[in-house]
């Protein structure tokens, strides 16, 4: 295959990944690595480097739209970024010592887990709960535009959320994904932050987290412009289009299909890693 044909194919695949990721809210980054590694036979280290770059593009590209909705909480985001960025550096540093077969298996497990957790119903938003002392000191409590006007919320279990965020950062640095599912899980289920606030704040954090490991990947020579270019442009275009048509689209069936794709890719990554072919 010529480089031109290869570039066009990868750009098309990345465009679809970005589009579906934005429409379903599951994020396109998570399927980019399996797509490159399984479908196109790209070395998994190049695939991770390219995916990391595309994760930054979607996060930063969508930031303005999310802020306008008025849900994201900059203090929660910044406080938890301390954990995710340190985790991301840790993940990127150990990535060079972990065999690619093991990375493939861990990737598969994370895919399966994120499909499972994103299918679970999230707990009902906690309102009028008593404030947590640590959250008050850190000024994490906030308000968001709810169905009945501006709704106040309190943040709970700060240490638990903080440690989950470190794990999310490590996985992000190790696998080149945004770890959006785990970030939302930490905020939504552990810290009891309202779902909308969790998802939009998570989007902000994803870009900063990915940037923390991208520097290390770049200096290690894991970011190949020939692969990162079509992936970044494709995912970005797909996710921007997805965010535009999101309002009109019926996303329930798309979510089922995309979850099924993620599960298949998860098993495939585990299998290939086990066989040692990746």
């Amino acid at each position, binding site marked *: 295959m010529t*480089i031109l044909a290869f*570039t066009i194919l990868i750009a098309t695949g990345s465009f679809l990944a970005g589009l579906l990721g934005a429409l379903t809210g599951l994020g396109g980054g998570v399927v980019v690595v399996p797509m490159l590694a399984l479908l196109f036979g790209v070395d998994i280290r190049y695939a991770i480097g390219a995916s990391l770059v595309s994760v*930054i593009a979607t996060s*930063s590209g969508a930031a*303005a739209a999310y802020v306008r909705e008025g849900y994201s909480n900059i203090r929660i985001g910044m406080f938890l970024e301390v954990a995710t960025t340190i985790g991301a550096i840790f993940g990127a540093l150990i990535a060079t010592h972990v065999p690619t077969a093991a990375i493939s298996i861990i990737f598969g497990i994370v895919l399966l887990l994120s499909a499972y957790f994103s299918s679970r119903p999230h707990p009902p938003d906690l309102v009028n709960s008593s404030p947590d002392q640590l959250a008050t000191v850190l000024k994490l409590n906030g308000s968001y535009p709810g169905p009945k006007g501006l709704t106040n919320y309190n943040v709970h279990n700060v240490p638990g959320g903080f440690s989950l965020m470190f794990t999310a950062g490590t996985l992000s640095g190790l696998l080149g994904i945004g770890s959006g599912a785990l970030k939302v899980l930490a905020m939504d289920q552990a810290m009891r932050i309202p779902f909308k606030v969790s998802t939009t704040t998570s989007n902000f954090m994803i870009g900063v987290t990915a940037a923390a490991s991208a520097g290390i990947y770049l200096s290690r*020579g894991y970011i190949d*412009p020939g692969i990162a270019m079509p992936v*970044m442009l494709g995912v970005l275009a797909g996710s921007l289009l997805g965010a535009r048509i999101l309002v009109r689209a019926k996303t329930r069936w798309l979510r089922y299909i995309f979850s099924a794709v993620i599960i298949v890719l998860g098993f495939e990554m585990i299998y290939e890693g086990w066989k040692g072919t990746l």
Partner: protein
Amino acid sequence: MNRPAIDDRRIELLLGNLLRFGVLLAASVVLCGAVVYLVRHGHETANFSEFRGEAAALRSLPAVVAGALHFHGKSIIQFGLLILIATPVARVVFSAIGFAIERDYLYVALTLIVLAVLLYSLIGSDAT
């Protein structure tokens, strides 16, 4: 207590637009590099299944800038990717300024920690 919340939002809106501008700028640079790269190398056979690690010219900021000035397609793409990586870093810098204006020194400190971690990744890890 209402005032800081509104200020937060204004800062965030400004930052959101700044980030989008950064991403579009990065994408344009990557696209320019892509044209140069594909015109010159598009007909060659693709081989990305073997990990070789990038050449030193594509691994550090000064080397990438030097290559881009010589109109190397790959270096221009890599320069665009560096702009992209810089966008979240810029957000953190501006957040620190925003918190300083609000005189929220606890968050100025937290933001500077995040910034230090990011700068370590981008610059400090080269030394290892």
